[in-house]
């Protein structure tokens, strides 16, 4: 393997490992779920991506076949990470909005910003073609809003 390739692979690995660690460190240390979501969705994704690229560089450089399979994983992660984050955020909004294991650090209990259209966020109101929500169903924690 050429020195350039080795340095490149090593750098990518160090970067990948570092980003992964930082992402997880963020998960561990940030104060609320919404802030914690940022760490893994970004840092970890890129960290994994870096490792994958390291792998992509490593195999051809070390005499193996050229491989783009790793790219596929990266694409897959880039495709799914926002959805996962969105779903976690929605679940969290829903529970916080209803005051289930409340964690005020996110500002959800204090009140989310209103939507410009007048309808609530989908998690609280559901489909556009649903009838208006029953007042009883309005999350108690958000009524003060």
């Amino acid at each position, binding site marked *: 393997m050429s020195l350039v390739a080795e340095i490149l692979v090593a750098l990518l690995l160090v970067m990948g490992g*570092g*980003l992964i660690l*930082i*992402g997880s*460190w*963020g998960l561990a*240390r*940030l*104060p*609320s779920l*919404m*802030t914690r*979501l*940022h*760490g893994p*969705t*970004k*840092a970890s*994704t*890129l*960290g994994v991506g870096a490792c994958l690229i390291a792998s992509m560089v490593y195999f051809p450089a070390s005499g193996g*076949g050229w*491989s*783009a*399979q790793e*790219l*596929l994983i990266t694409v897959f992660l*880039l*495709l799914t*990470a*926002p*959805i996962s*984050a*969105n779903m976690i*955020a*929605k679940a969290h*909004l829903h529970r916080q909005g209803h005051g289930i294991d409340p964690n005020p650090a*996110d*500002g959800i209990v204090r009140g*989310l*910003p*209103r*939507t*410009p*259209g*007048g*309808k*609530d*966020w*989908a*998690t*609280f*109101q*559901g*489909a*556009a073609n*649903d009838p208006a929500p029953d007042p009883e169903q309005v999350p108690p924690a958000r009524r003060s809003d």
Partner: protein
Amino acid sequence: MIRRLLPHPALSVLVAVVWMLLVNEFTVGAVLLALVVGVVAPLVTSRFWPDRPKIRFGPDFLGYVGIVLWDIVEANFQVAWIILTRRNRDLRSRWLVVPLELRSPEAITVLAGTISLTPGTVTSDVSADGRALLIHALDVADPEAEVARIKQRYETRLLKVFR
């Protein structure tokens, strides 16, 4: 006939490319098989695609992809820096609302995904009428500027890609 055989030509190409990436060998046989899979996989799953988004795979598309990839890398380092250095009480995390001009669910999803992957923002919800995104920002000094940046940098480009 072609329409029935290739209900989603772009998807077919995508699947074929993915197949090539998977099998990881560039031979005639592999390409032929990739084409077959590219036809078959969308065909058997076409029933799950009731609507077909119209996408222009032109320079706008490539430009958008390039910008997003760059932003992802940049965003990651930004976030990493914040995680490593910023004390919790100094975090200016807040909610942003991005009103949307995009109407197609596919386009909105792409925008939302982009927002999540790029600096310090996570798309948390969409409004029930689909006209606004709820975004959580990790550390934002000026919310209006951030919303404007998102709309200008991503949404306007997406408006050109999705017709």
